[in-house]
């Protein structure tokens, strides 16, 4: 059967414009219900008087809070650097042709992914109980002078992150077609050159987006180190409310700052993923000149 198209279809405007979406009325009703519910909730919270918003806003730019914020950013950045570098090393170890090396990598990932991060942090903080001093020969240092709360936090977060990054990097390496390394060895590149110049630059496309995700997670996970008093945002917040008992007001301060950090980080992630649609970005990051 043939569909006949009216001859004058091109001259005639399409009906009277765009067709109307079905369910417009329903959509408005649902919107109204949600807005009303949120308003009621907000009103209850504000009007109850249980939260002193003056205190919340008063502490928002408090110097101790800002110090904590800087420490949170430092811990996030340094832990991610430790995590990424060690993660790459573990991923390369995982595909080693020496079984003992790949087994060591698997053991590391098993231990550090299989135990809670909080437990690991407390463990590093108390490492002096196991190894009171470290050193070689006559140079002996009491470990308590090395493992400050900051160092323990960095160890805990970084070593834990490395286990997750190892899996991410390994997936990235696996995503590169085996023909790439065959072509690379066929022109005489050695193992290290194949990895650094051919495989890792192409694996970045797969590695970058989940790494951005991990970084956002890390911003929030740093709050765990408050249990060892590492002076980051949550520790500082707790210090203040231990003195003035305005617990909720100060937790709101911390939460708003965490929201600011994760929102900015998500924007950066969005931008990164957009750029990585274009393979040129791989080259920029890998530092390969055209």
């Amino acid at each position, binding site marked *: 059967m043939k569909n006949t198209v009216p001859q004058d279809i091109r001259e005639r405007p399409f009906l009277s414009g765009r067709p109307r979406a079905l369910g417009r009325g329903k959509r408005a009703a649902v919107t109204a219900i949600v807005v009303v519910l949120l308003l009621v909730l907000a009103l209850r919270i504000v009007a109850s008087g249980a939260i002193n918003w003056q205190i919340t806003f008063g502490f928002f730019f408090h110097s101790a809070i800002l110090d904590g914020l800087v420490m949170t950013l430092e811990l996030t950045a340094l832990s991610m650097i430790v995590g990424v570098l060690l993660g790459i090393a573990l991923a390369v170890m995982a595909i080693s042709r020496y079984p003992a090396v790949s087994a060591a990598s698997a053991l590391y990932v098993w231990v550090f992914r299989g135990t809670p991060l909080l437990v690991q942090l407390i463990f590093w903080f108390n490492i002096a109980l196991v190894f009171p001093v470290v050193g070689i020969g006559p140079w002996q240092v009491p470990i308590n002078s090395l493992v400050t709360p900051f160092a323990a936090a960095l160890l805990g977060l970084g070593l834990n992150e490395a286990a997750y990054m190892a899996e991410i990097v390994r997936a990235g390496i696996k995503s590169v077609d085996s023909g790439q390394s*065959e*072509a690379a060895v066929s022109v*005489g590149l050695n193992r290290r050159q194949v990895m650094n*110049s051919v495989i890792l630059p*192409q694996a970045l496309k797969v590695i970058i987006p989940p790494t951005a995700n991990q970084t956002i997670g890390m911003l929030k996970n740093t709050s765990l180190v408050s249990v060892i008093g590492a002076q980051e945002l949550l520790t500082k917040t707790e210090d203040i409310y231990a003195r003035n008992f305005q617990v909720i007001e100060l937790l709101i301060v911390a939460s708003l700052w965490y929201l600011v950090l994760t929102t900015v980080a998500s924007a950066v992630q969005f931008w990164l993923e957009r750029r990585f649609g274009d393979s040129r970005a791989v080259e920029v990051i890998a530092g390969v000149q055209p």
Partner: protein
Amino acid sequence: MTVVPLSVRPAEGEAAMQPTLSARHIGKAFGTHVVLTDVSLDVERGEVVCIIGPSGSGKSTFLRCINFLEVPDAGGVWVEGERIGCQEVDGVLWEVPSAVLARQRAAMGMVFQRFNLFGHLTAVDNVALALRLVKRMPRQQARERALSVLASVGMDRFAGHRPSQLSGGQQQRVAIARAVAMEPKVLLFDEPTSALDPELVHEVLSVMGSLAGQGMTMVVVTHEIGFAREVSNRTVFMDGGSIVEQGQSAQVLGQPSEARTKAFLSKIK
């Protein structure tokens, strides 16, 4: 299958003549599946040898054994008298250090069915990468050399293009340039036109033809009977993991003496 000890060497007289490429008694099995049984092939300098045969005949595996992408289970490969991938110490055969194997591989160019261009690099960088990393050329010199080799395959206009911006035929020409730039003693082609749209086959074959005309030593696994007839000196027909028939291309392709060769040729014509 007769297992040939790994220490088999070319006989004394043959070694003196020293063919550019000498593969002797190559055997290879994947698990219990025997892919190659006692395959030997000598290629003289400047000679072009085509290997034809049905899929699964072991011809690609044989090519991959030559530059040790697959490690042969038996037999050995010599390029200009140097044994590839192994060395004998006190009568025991050892793998060579990976740096030595890398140097040996650099002397053998390989062109793949699926091109395998480095996806993150432009055409000129694909060619220049090994010049810089393996031949230790300065960046600028490597780039100039890469451009001139690209020009020889007609791809200099696309030097700044990425593989994803090139057609299959163009990618394969860049891949040939990448192999040629290393000045290999022998070029190995693994079904270089099998992944191409029919209208793109010609441009790759003509590049290969001109390489042959310049005296490049080539081993070509192919289904292009026309190319084998016109360009190659010798054609080898493989089936079931061994060489069934070989000889002058015109003779093997025109008046094959083996029934299996006849049957294969009649199927693909």
